């Protein structure tokens, strides 16, 4: 088990930077999720840790020991690949035994450990089968099994459940998290699915365009995104963004728009005025921080016209047209609005955000 540190890590393909100046500390035994859309450099990051890719510049350290020049086999990491990468010509047992065998373990030790791992993953009845005889979920368990038969420094999971169906994915999320807690091994988990990252990780590293955007706990990333990009990427349904003007009315800053004018709290006012002189910024509010009604609750509410309603079973999403944009509101299924009707929304001002229009940085 090890602590993993990234120190000014760069990865370039030719002149194309894929990872830019990455600095992350991942404490021993923690679960770090690297989150970002495809092409953000998250896979390159993981492959550099595994030793499958050259580190262009900077250092990666395990327990303060640089591992840049070590071959993968000497790094003592275990990795689960997106496509499982099982050896088709070997049985499940041989697949799982492979890392131990390559390290010259005794047959008895191998047998014991593989059996134990298989039991843990509930695949002990599949040991004699070949990978092509397994379902997606079973293959995935075998791939994980191959990783946990040893006690490596570090687990690397590269989108391991991306190819499973939705139900199984939800199930495996819980299992993997439980597994990591049980084994206590440091884990780096790469995913593009914010839900996976949110639900499993101790720490999330959000990456975009090769740059680390934010490093924090799931709660921090969700509640206090550092910039508009992170705010927009994390959360489902996604955050609404509305361009608003900033106006002073009777000593209190208001965010103004054709459809509304809402005062900010004192704390927020301080932050905005400290932060910039911009007369316009981007307001961000999550669908669940808005409440919608068909009657006007107060003066400082947002007026809009219902575009469409989507029933999601337990919840309802209402798409509302403002004059220049469309926002989504999460509400209960009791909501009785009709398409085309005028509706009113109140913002929970404790839960909204404001971002600079210039560089996307969050004021609050």
């Amino acid at each position, binding site marked *: 088990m090890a602590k993993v540190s990234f120190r000014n890590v760069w990865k370039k393909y030719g002149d194309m930077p894929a990872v830019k100046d990455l600095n992350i500390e991942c404490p021993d035994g923690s679960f770090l999720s690297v989150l970002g859309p495809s092409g953000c450099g998250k896979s390159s990051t993981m492959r550099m840790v595994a*030793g499958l890719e050259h580190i262009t510049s900077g250092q990666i350290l395990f327990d303060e020991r640089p591992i840049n020049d070590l071959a993968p086999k000497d790094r003592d990491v275990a990795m689960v690949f997106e*496509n499982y990468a*099982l*050896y*088709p*010509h070997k049985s499940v047992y041989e697949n799982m035994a492979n890392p131990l065998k390559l390290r010259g373990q005794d047959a008895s030790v191998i047998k014991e450990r593989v059996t134990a791992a298989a039991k843990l993953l509930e695949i002990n009845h599949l040991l004699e089968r070949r990978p092509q005889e397994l379902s997606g979920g079973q293959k995935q368990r075998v791939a994980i099994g191959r990783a946990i038969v040893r006690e490596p420094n570090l687990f690397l999971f590269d989108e391991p459940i991306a190819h499973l169906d939705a139900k199984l994915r939800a199930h495996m999320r819980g299992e993997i998290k439980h597994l990591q807690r049980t084994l206590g091994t440091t884990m780096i988990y790469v995913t593009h699915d914010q839900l996976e990252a949110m639900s499993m990780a101790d720490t999330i590293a959000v990456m975009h365009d090769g740059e680390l955007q934010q490093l924090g706990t799931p709660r921090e990333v969700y509640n206090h995104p550092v910039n508009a990009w992170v705010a927009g990427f994390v959360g489902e349904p996604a955050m609404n963004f509305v361009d608003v003007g900033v106006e002073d009315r009777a000593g209190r800053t208001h965010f103004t728009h054709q459809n509304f004018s809402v005062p900010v709290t004192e704390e927020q006012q301080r932050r905005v005025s400290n932060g910039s002189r911009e007369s316009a910024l981007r307001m961000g509010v999550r669908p669940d921080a808005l409440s919608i009604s068909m009657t006007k609750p107060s003066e400082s509410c947002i007026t809009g016209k219902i*575009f469409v309603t989507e029933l999601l079973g337990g919840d309802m999403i209402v798409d509302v047209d403002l004059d220049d944009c469309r926002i989504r509101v999460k509400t209960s299924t009791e909501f009785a609005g009709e398409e085309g009707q005028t509706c009113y929304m109140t913002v929970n001002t404790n839960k909204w955000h404001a971002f600079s229009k210039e560089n996307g940085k969050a004021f609050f």
Partner: protein
Amino acid sequence: MTDATMPKTSGAARKTSGNGRNLDLFRVRHIPDSVESRPVPMSVTEPTSLNKPVSKSFYFWLMAPAILVLAFISIYPFFWMIYMSLHDVDIGHVEWNNFANFIKLPSDSRFLMGWVLLAEYSAMCLTLQIIIGVFLALALNGTRLEKVLVTTLLMPMMMAPLVAGMVWYFLYNGTFGWYHWLLQSLGILGAKSILASANTAMIGLVLVDVWQWTPLITLITLAGLKRVPQDQLEANMVDGASPFRNFVSVTLPNLYPVLLIAIMLRFMDNFRFIDSILVLTGGGPGNATKILPVYLFEVSFKFFKLGRGAAIALILLIVTIILGKILVRVFDRQQPSKV
């Protein structure tokens, strides 16, 4: 539920939807949300009559010309082959001979020797080609010069085997052949050409086949190497394998199906093509390189014993068809097992 929760189905209430965007192009017709749920049928009744199936005649008409032509040049000759094999066939004279063509075969030493030599020839060609071809592919794979070098290696394959045979005949020649000079200078050969001595003639032929067709093995192996799943190699590396170990336990097993195909193809080609052998030795010296197809050629088109030739051809054909059956099975199974 209040009245508002019940969706209104009248068109008037919906007219306002679309937010004033121009929807004239599409006539919007609203379907009520609250369709009465349909009862689940409790029993299914079998259909009393079946409809006419879709006609496939279009496709059969498209197939017909090719099938007819093929039948004329393959099935029709096949029956002739059987007919001829049972007769004494000379130009303008055909006579039933009580299976004599077949009966004589087991005691025909050149016929039996033909099989042995064919096996010997094929074994030598294949062994050398596989070893060299695979090694070349490994040496080439991923190098900067791969494209250029592969293109260079392709050149012999484009050559008519007959021309290749001629060129090598020239190179092997005992008085003015450059390769003969080389072999002589290296002390490997004496004054006699490699083709002139019964001990070495077969090797001379094998070298030509190796020269011309090893690149095919290389090409096939390269294609196979590109298909070795990268993530399996990587997984094995992370599991702790050395490059050599990685080759043995991941690359080779993944390469195995294409290599099998390569072997089968070359093996069958050794049956099929005898052009270069006809030029280089014609089966000689003595009968040292008279592999079965060469012997068959000699019987049929040198001595014009077409009946006897047909008998030999029939046996050769049956053996090939059996091999072909195996090959097709290999083809079907070789689809890369994706995990």
